[in-house]
């Protein structure tokens, strides 16, 4: 469980997060949704300690991040898996080396054991023939899947995904969503996902935090999101419906 209390973060005097509080539950897929520029990535990076919030606290199962010693912070981070919006694969390493990297750094496993685990997670993300390729030699969607494999390879307790399925075709997108949900339940992970994809919300939105202009505008489950009369939420969901209808019309032509 990750408890966020009143975090604020600004860049160059402009407040991006204006005091957000919430709880991300263990074993569930927690979604942060909101328009582009609403502060989702900043929120996620603040949770990870990449950005340091000016105020507020973040506690990982009782461990308050800002009060930990540097070494304790690093230890906590080895329990975290992160999928960056742009994948952030190490471009000097092959796919297999990327995925095996956290194991090589933080476990005592020998090479054959690492190899085995890498094969296993790459199979889980449906990538079986890219082991020896460099990130520059595979497609964006494949890079995303490698990034997911790398994030889950060391059995994280906390999994953060910044738009894990943006830029993927609908099939793969659903596959990735379901994969993350399955892993979350199977290993009882606290998973936080950024998205502006309504499909994902409907598939895996067990708990949804709606950000607008750096504030928590709404919070609830996927069942609730279609019934709420919160104006901001309705506007957000409707805009995506509109998009769907435009697409339907386009396909009929």
């Amino acid at each position, binding site marked *: 469980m990750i408890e966020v209390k009143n975090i604020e973060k600004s860049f160059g005097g402009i407040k991006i997060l204006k005091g957000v509080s919430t709880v991300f539950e263990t074993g569930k897929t927690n979604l942060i949704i909101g328009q582009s520029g609403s502060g989702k990535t900043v929120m996620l990076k603040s949770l990870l*300690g990449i950005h340091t919030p000016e105020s507020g606290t973040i506690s990982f199962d009782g461990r308050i991040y800002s009060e930990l010693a*540097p070494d304790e912070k*690093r*230890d906590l*981070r080895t329990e975290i898996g*992160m999928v960056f919006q742009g994948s952030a*694969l190490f471009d000097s390493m092959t796919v297999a080396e990327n995925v095996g990297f956290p194991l090589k*750094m*933080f476990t005592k496993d020998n090479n054959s054991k690492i190899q085995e685990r890498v094969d296993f997670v790459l199979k889980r993300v449906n990538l079986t023939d890219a082991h020896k390729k460099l990130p520059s030699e595979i497609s964006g969607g494949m890079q995303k899947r490698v990034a997911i494999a790398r994030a889950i390879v060391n059995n994280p307790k906390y999994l953060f995904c910044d738009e894990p399925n943006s830029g993927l075709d609908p099939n793969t997108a659903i596959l990735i969503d379901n994969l993350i949900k399955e892993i979350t339940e199977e290993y009882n992970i606290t998973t936080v996902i950024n998205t502006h994809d309504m499909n994902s919300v409907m598939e895996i939105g067990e708990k949804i935090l709606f950000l607008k202009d750096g504030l928590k505008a709404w919070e609830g489950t996927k069942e609730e999101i279609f019934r709420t009369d919160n104006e901001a939420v309705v506007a957000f969901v409707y805009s995506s419906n509109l998009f769907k209808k435009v697409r339907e019309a386009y396909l009929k032509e």
Partner: protein
Amino acid sequence: MMLIRYITQIGRYFLMLKEIFNKQTKWSVMRNLIFKEIDDLIIGSLGIVAFISFFVGGVVAIQTALNLTNPLIPKYLIGFATRQSVILEFAPTFISVIMAGKMGSFITSSIGTMRVTEQIDALEVMGVNSLNYLVFPKIIALLLYPFVIGISMFLGVLGGWMAGVYGGFTSSDEFINGAQLDFIPFHIVYAFLKTLIFAMLLATIPSFHGYYMKGGALEVGRASTVSFVWTSVTIITFNYILTQLLLGS
């Protein structure tokens, strides 16, 4: 305002140096990183260093010869002047300034690219000390930098000898006599001491500019240029101070 910014930057630079040595990366991983840096930074520079040293050494000899118009000045001065200028300044200082361009922009752009594509964040999120992971192997690899300069010194003098002898400016014996004249062992100590200090500047200043850069691909290019300017300015400044301290008085 400018001054405050420079002082802040220098402070940050020293904090970075401290952080590099904080939490060490596993040796089995670090070993491979060091070999890779030796390959990229040291082996990869030998060709250009050899080429420049040989020909500049030759030019120094020719220039000296051409300026010795007075028949009373002995010819062995050609060898002597070549040796002095190559060993004391050309190899340690000017090769280092060239390396600030070659190695330095390579270091800044590779670390800077990792910064803008969030690879450094990815390392940090995993719990890796990214400064140790990225910069420490470069520092260790550059402990071999004095060998590069040693090669440069040798080839510079050799180039001078070839140009002098085959250009018909001096005889081989005269040149070698000159090259051995008034040899002061401390000059070698001085040359390699400053080489080692330049090596540390070459490893850390470009890393600093890459690591703390902000922005995108365009800024990576700009950071490389800024990094070259600062690395070479620092090398030249340190050269002056060290020369004053070690040879002056």
